[in-house]
């Protein structure tokens, strides 16, 4: 495709000499006005003129680049750019380079990532989407937009082969990265599923991570995800792991919290009796900031305990 070179102000450029700029009409007394710079006004006046003409041309394409640079949240700019790219049959690989460039400055922009997905969809191949998101996540490991994009890439192109390895690498850098734990669940769910051998593997993996940082909420939540799988019955394995953690750190609030959840999910009289004591310890000592929550949990534990004890009496 051709490329046009813009000179500023556009009002003085030959390239836009034929166009009548369209000023914004905010009325006689606008509210929440913005003190636009001259450059912003200049670019937007000519963008409005182009919109009015529905002109999909090389100069329009170049103009959308500037519109996006001055305001990456301008979704009309991104939309019109796509229409120009289509009309001019532009090289979409090159377009991804443009997206990379804007992403350096505005990686937390919804419109940019949507645009990227539309372009990649049109290209129809995974290309270097995994590499691009890997690079972005190594720089900013919790960027919500990049993770969302990566999930889209995986789902769309089915390229899960190395994803667990990638998650593992990120967790080695930061065992507390909640986004990486979420991704782990996403991968297992969408590939092998949580079969018995997979559950065994994941339980072992998670307790290994917990040993490194026992008060890290993310892996404990991951365990909660594991025990909520349909027909989960590996209660002994999961309890043993928690008991091991408890033995090495009797003040680990996350461990006790999890054991209380186990007791509520797989109730037995002995588990519930221990859980009630744990709630008391959490409430009065180990996790006082959440004392009302432990009171609430203990209420549930005692209610369930009473129910089981009553049932046991009846069967006698």
């Amino acid at each position, binding site marked *: 495709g051709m490329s046009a070179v813009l000179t500023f102000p556009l009002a003085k450029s030959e390239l836009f000499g034929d166009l009548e700029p*369209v000023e*914004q*009409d*905010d*009325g*006689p*007394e*606008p*509210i*929440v*006005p*913005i*003190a*636009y*710079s001259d450059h*912003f006004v200049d670019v*937007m006046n000519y963008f*409005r003129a182009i*919109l*009015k003409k*529905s002109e999909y041309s090389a100069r329009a394409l170049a103009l959308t680049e500037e519109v996006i640079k001055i*305001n990456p*949240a*301008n*979704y*009309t700019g*991104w*939309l*019109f750019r796509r229409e120009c790219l289509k009309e001019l049959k532009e090289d979409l690989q090159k377009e991804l380079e443009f997206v990379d460039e804007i992403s350096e400055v505005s990686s937390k922009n*919804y*419109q940019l990532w*949507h645009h990227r997905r539309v372009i990649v969809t049109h290209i129809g191949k995974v290309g270097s989407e995994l590499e691009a998101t890997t690079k972005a996540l190594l720089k900013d490991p*919790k960027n*919500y937009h990049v*993770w*969302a994009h990566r*999930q889209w890439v995986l*789902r769309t192109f089915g390229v899960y082969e190395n994803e667990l390895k990638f998650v593992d690498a990120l967790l080695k850098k930061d065992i*507390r*990265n*909640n*986004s990486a734990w*979420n991704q782990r*669940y*996403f991968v297992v769910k969408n590939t092998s599923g949580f079969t018995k051998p997979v559950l065994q593997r994941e339980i072992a993996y998670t307790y290994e991570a917990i040993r490194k940082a026992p008060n*890290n*909420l*993310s892996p404990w*939540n*991951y365990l*909660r*995800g594991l025990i*909520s799988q349909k027909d989960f019955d590996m209660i002994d394995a999961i309890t043993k792991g928690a008991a091991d953690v408890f033995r090495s750190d009797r003040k680990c609030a996350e461990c006790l919290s999890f054991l209380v*959840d186990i007791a*509520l999910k797989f109730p037995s009289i002995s588990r519930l009796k221990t859980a009630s004591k744990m709630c008391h310890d959490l409430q009065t000592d180990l996790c006082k*900031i*959440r004392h*009302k*929550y432990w009171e*609430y949990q203990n209420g549930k534990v005692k209610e369930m305990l009473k129910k089981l004890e009553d049932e046991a009496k009846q069967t006698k």
Partner: protein
Amino acid sequence: EMEKKKEAEQAGEESSPKEAKVERKFEKEKHVRYFLYMLKMMPHDYESMDMKRMMILYLSLSGLDVMGEIKRVDEKLKKRAINWIYSMQKTPPKFTAGGAENKNSQPNKHYGFRGSSSFGGKYGECNCEDIFPNDEAHIAMTYSALSCLKILGDDLSKVDKKAIIRSLKLLQRENGCFRCVTSEEDDMRFMYCACVISDMLDDWTGIDIPKAVEYIVESQAFDGGIGLRIGAEGHGGTTYCAVASLVLMNKVHELKDMEGLTRWCVYAQGKGFVGRPNKPADSCYSFWIGSTMKMLGIYHLTDINGNREFNLRCQTPWGGFGKHPNVHPDPLHTYFGICGLSMMGLDSELLPIDPRWGITLRAKGGVENEQNEAKSGEVEAK
């Protein structure tokens, strides 16, 4: 332990020893002036807000309202605001191409309110599709506009409600979720906008409710939080959007893991609230998660004093709140920081909010007694 404390200090979770000596109070007048300033003029580094001016208007007006100071918007400024809001309305053309009166409100485009006048039409021109074919409303700006009108006491008589509701059908996707404009993707934020708009206009014919509910239920993550989309990480803002949507649709009971959601919300609080586990506390989550807990009837499980202490530390010397202590202010964190404080009920000057609509009970109207908790959307604790 020392390392953890240092990390927490850096993240603003803990006061430095010097800071801890300062008694914090709510600097209301500074924040009132902050919002009044925004109404009159936003500085040039707000150019990135150009498509969202209606939302900044909502944050400012509602912020003043929550502080009990909507009266600082005098009659003249009020009129100015209402006129500008209505000038942003995009309605179907009054006449068809053939010249006859447009009885069916065709064509089937996205009507409602725009975020700004950047699209190029003439002031007050509700429809210029023939000149600017890319012009359309924006679902979050429609929500913002309706909120602003209510806050300013307008009766919505000039709002084309039918066109807005019909546009929701256009914006809802196969998966049940909603887009904000026809050219962008759907996500949980706009699910909320669709639901609150329907409730405000008291017309649910624009939403396929079962599909919407299914999408939300599927979006609950394994840790109990709810993400932007299915598979995404549980997040404070999107959890609010999802729960508020379900509450508005009377479908909260459809959630599969209420206990997980309860735990996720409780655990989001250290002193301040975080948006995701293992991230630093941020003032706006005291609203997103606080109001989620209000709607679920579990707000009493929060630590109000810790919450208040953190929020107050996010105030800046110039007025406004930043996301963390010692960070520059912005309208969003200012508004939601103040809303978070309102919910705590410790500052008598702050008005109660309806967590479902995101405006004061006063603005919502129809409430005799502002203290009436039942009307604020609080659910009886089970």
